[in-house]
């Protein structure tokens, strides 16, 4: 491992790309596109390098960079990656070039602005997943709103104004609460210790004993609302279907693939380490919301007439599994949740990409407008079918591993919720199969018969996602080996901080830290000091 600041490079590359794109002449779309591909692919290359260099031995943050940034308010530029954020970075870096490639023909208008916003979106997402300073995290969280708002508003469909505004409002409400909580946390820490810092690791080592239970609970709830809106948990979810329906394909892919994972990531990263007591106490609330999300998302998805809305509601159901896995507070459940956060971008990304291809051909998302597509576009059907079975948790694909681990983990600690969640597994099949039947089966109409099948470019867009989903479904170890050390550390820290005991199946040993890592080191997340 060299001293090359790889994380900074990963964050900076798309930003530089965005700046470069704005300086290009807008009359030369081919150059703009080439630059867009160049920078997103360079970011992906860096992310792959990160993946290759990532050590499975280190349970703390790796490649940490720590520089002064805003000394006046105690905020520093701290970036680092662990098993929980690693795959979010990789998934983001992977989806971006594919989404750009998928948007090659559409939208044709204003490619310069589109590409620039898109690169800025990537920049903010990577910043969110890599920041270890709460102020910095918040800044990235807010920056994200801008490109996403303009992508929906500028390149969306009929009701794009409404959807963009709704997206902005919902998320801004959440972030407002989160900012308040971040500030309170920082200043309380300053009051207690005299040091003003927003270093996540420092705060995490202090908050569990420095806050009263009430304060902790209030702050937890503040963060929770921000994350729950992003996730989204029912009843904070109605922005998602609208945003999806109106967003361009690339926007939907990123929205479903990465943006909604920000909420789950927030819970995993911040709730447990900063507010462990509240996380343990309020786990039943979150589990209940998760199960409601699973069932509600599935039921409502079943009666949608718009293909994108079906997938949007299905995402709500999938995120329900993630939240249930997280708040099962077991290593199995957390493993399952993080794995699903990696798997879901692949499967749902592929689904949205294929639906975007249908839209390009017929300019509608209405299910009733289709029928018998299989006849004229068998390859497209095959891609949709693979993405669908991967998404509904068919063994052999990645979705199954994540869902199953979440369920096993939840069963170990919270049986009734696990059983309710298992029922959601069938529903997932119901709505997707109905949609599949109505779109791809049946007698094709004359227009459908003239529909061209996929081009090579379209295969290249979807194939990597499906191949990765299959690979991870067959060989989940590749991802789990990297995820698990951090997950174990999270669980052990919750145990150390609260006296909570992880539930385990009969005959299984307690989750422990690797040899050579002490409890106090673990609580301080590897940071030196007393």
């Amino acid at each position: 491992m060299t001293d090359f600041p790889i994380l900074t490079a990963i964050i900076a590359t798309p930003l530089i790309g965005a700046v470069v794109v704005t300086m290009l002449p807008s009359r030369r779309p081919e150059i703009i596109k080439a630059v867009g591909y160049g920078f997103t692919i360079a970011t992906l290359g860096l992310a792959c390098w990160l993946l290759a260099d990532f050590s499975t031995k280190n349970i703390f943050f790796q490649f940490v960079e720590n520089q002064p940034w805003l000394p006046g308010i105690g905020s520093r530029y701290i970036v680092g990656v662990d098993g929980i954020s690693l795959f979010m970075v990789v998934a983001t870096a992977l989806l971006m070039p594919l989404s750009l490639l998928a948007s090659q023909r559409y939208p044709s208008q204003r490619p310069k602005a589109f590409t620039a916003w898109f690169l800025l979106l990537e920049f903010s997402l990577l910043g969110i997943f890599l920041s270890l300073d709460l102020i910095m995290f918040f800044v990235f969280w807010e920056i994200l709103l801008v490109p996403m708002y303009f992508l929906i508003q500028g390149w969306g469909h009929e009701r794009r104004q409404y959807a963009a505004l709704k997206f902005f409002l919902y998320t801004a409400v959440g972030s407002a609460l989160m900012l308040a909580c971040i500030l309170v946390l920082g200043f309380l820490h300053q009051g207690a210790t005299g040091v003003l810092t927003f270093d996540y690791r420092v705060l995490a080592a202090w908050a569990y004993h420095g806050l009263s239970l009430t304060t902790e609970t209030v702050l937890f709830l503040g963060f929770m609302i921000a994350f729950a809106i992003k996730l989204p948990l029912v009843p904070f979810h109605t922005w998602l279907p609208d945003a999806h329906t109106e967003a361009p394909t690339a926007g939907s892919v990123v929205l479903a693939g990465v943006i909604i994972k920000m909420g789950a990531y927030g819970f995993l990263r911040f709730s447990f380490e900063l507010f462990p007591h509240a996380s343990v106490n309020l786990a039943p609330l979150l589990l209940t919301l998760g199960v409601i999300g699973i069932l509600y998302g599935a039921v409502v998805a079943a009666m949608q007439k718009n293909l994108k809305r079906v997938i949007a509601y299905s995402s709500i159901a999938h995120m329900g599994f993630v939240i249930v896995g997280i708040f099962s507070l077991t290593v199995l459940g957390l493993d399952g949740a993080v794995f699903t956060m990696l798997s879901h971008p692949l499967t749902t990304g592929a689904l949205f990409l294929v639906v975007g291809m249908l839209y390009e051909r017929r300019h509608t998302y209405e299910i009733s407008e289709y029928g018998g597509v299989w006849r004229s576009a068998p390859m497209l059907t095959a891609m949709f079918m693979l993405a669908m079975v991967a998404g509904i948790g068919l063994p052999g694909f990645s979705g199954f591993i994540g869902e199953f681990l979440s369920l096993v983990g939840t069963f170990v600690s919270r049986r009734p919720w696990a059983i309710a969640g298992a029922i959601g597994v069938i529903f997932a099949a119901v709505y997707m199969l109905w949609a599949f039947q109505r779109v791809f089966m049946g007698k094709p109409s004359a227009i459908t018969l003239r529909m061209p099948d996929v081009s090579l470019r379209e295969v290249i867009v979807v194939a990597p996602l499906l191949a990765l989903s299959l690979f991870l479904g067959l060989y989940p170890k590749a991802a789990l080996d990297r995820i698990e050390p951090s997950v174990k550390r999270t669980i052990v820290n919750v145990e150390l901080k609260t006296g909570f005991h992880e539930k385990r199946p009969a005959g299984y040993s307690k989750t422990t830290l690797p040899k050579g890592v002490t409890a106090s080191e673990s609580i301080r997340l590897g940071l030196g000091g007393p």
Partner: protein
Amino acid sequence: MLENAWIIPTLPAVAFVAIVFFGKRSPGKGAFVGIAAVGASFVASCVAAGQWIQRVDNATGKSEGLAAFTKGVVSAGGAHAVQPVTESITWWQNGSIKFGVGTFVDGLTVMMVVVVTLISLLVQIYSTAYMRGDRRYTWYFAALSLFTASMLTLVVASNTIQLLVGWELVGVCSFMLIGHWWEEPANSRAAIKAFLTTRTGDIGLMIGIIILFFTVGSFGIGATNLYATSGHAQHAFLLAAAVCLLVAIIGKSGQFPLHTWLPDAMAGPTPVSALIHAATMVVAGVFLGARLYPVFFNGFSIGHGGVNAMALVGGVTIIIGAALAFVQTDIKKVLAYSTISQLGYMVMALGVGAWSAAVFHLFTHAFFKALLFLGAGSVSHAAGHSFDMREMGGLRKKMPITFWTFVIGSLALAGIFPLAGFWSKDEILVNAGKNGYTAFLVVGLIGAFLTAAYMTRVVYLTFFGEYRGHEHPHESERAITIPLVILGALSVGAGLVNAAPLGLEKIKDWVQPQVAFPHLNNAAFDYPKAILSVSIALAAIVIAGYYWLRRDELRAFRGLTERNALARSGYQFLVNKYYLDYLYEDIIVDGIRGAVARASYWVNQHVIDGVVNGLGSGSTRIARYTYDVIDQRVVDGAANGIALETDRAGAEVRGFQSGHVQRYALVLFGGVGLLSLALFLINIH
């Protein structure tokens, strides 16, 4: 081969990939690849079976010798019991919990792989003729290969996760194949119904597996069975797991009340129906019951002779399925209900402690049910692609091979001595009686009567009388008749594997596990019961045959016998027959065809399907309500309300969209300041 059993499912899986990518360009448009792979897989299965038999015989021989030497110190099931051959590698690991993938090979496994690969092979050969010219011919063979591979994965599974993997894959393949002709909405509906109904059962499997894991501490099949047979198993957990797994069996194996998908699944191509009914899909449930039998045995306390859920489900299904078979005019639907009924026998047998009888019946049923489906396909292939028996008739002369094999299959199904079905069904009945389940013995006998009667009806309507269709029926080609003849031979001979009076009890010797298995005493062959059941079946055939022949040919025939002195006793017999016929026609047949069957069918279509449809439409209604009222009005209403208020406040900048955003941002961040101040003040102490 016992150590390398992974080859058996891998071959068809590789064939699937090869056909998908290269099928259209390969010889036979993919069919040859599929046939070659499943053929090789069949050979490998036979080798495995041979090695297993050798292993058992060696061990038995040794233990006998040793037992003689040590004067019976070594007891059966002791040190010299034949262990299954387990191979496993870690698939992935979470903490100390290992998820493996591997093979668990014992007698049951080798029997299943032989049956599955053989039936698949014959079905694929048959399909080359039956599916010729199909729009998606290559894809069809790819899907068949995957179907077989999935089932084999399930069968050789060394742990319950892998079993679940195979189970789900089988479900998806059945979805694709039942809906193969998806241009017709009815077909795709049937495919979805099949997938969703079986998936309802899958919840049971999933939860059952998790409960077992939680209780046993392992997903391994061997470990689970060992735990369940150990004295210290927690009964409550076993019971819970057994109930959940029974739900899975009910869903997959078409048991009452989740059997309604199976007749609809006839929408698929006929060879697929044969495969689903004989080898791949529906027997998966029974296989699950047999594989994890100790869990059911101890969970349901089967050894104690009380009525249990498993036997009850099986028993009810026998009658329900058989009764429904009478009112069908579609030949494939008769066979579908017949499968339901026969699976009921297997489940009931498991429920009454007759493990080897259940497995034996699975074995023989595979052959004659595949034969009957393929025969029905041959008939329709030759007679204008109709399965309506009202358009058949008189085909006996026109397609003799199909006719004779179909008759053999029907007799085997009816349990006529000495065909395959006789031996296995008889063993179920004898063991039910011996283990104290007299009520289920009676149910089994009633089922035997009904089975023989409805099969007689099918044979009559299809092959006798005058041809009522408008085609020019002819015997099918060799690719169709050769599988029929092979299956016909097996339907005759397969029962000899476990023909107790001949001293052959190979199912018990070779297949029944000797370790981690409840102690079962198989009943000895019982001549009175065997004669009784055969007489019942014969009576049913005669009664039903008489009923169907009466109008056309019997009057002339009767006149002949009246003039013939030799036939006087026969006359008396016929009078008695007539009396029985009257009884049969007016009371039993009309009773069954009219009241009971119609009622069952009504219950089937209205109550069960009604509940299913009701749940469907109800959930749609709930969904619509939730969506319209809660989602769109309440939740969205609140959001829109906030938006509207802010909108009014910012009326002067309306029309300039980004102006809204700035204003909201301003309002929100102003709020943030106040809020954080408030929180800060509250908490500073």
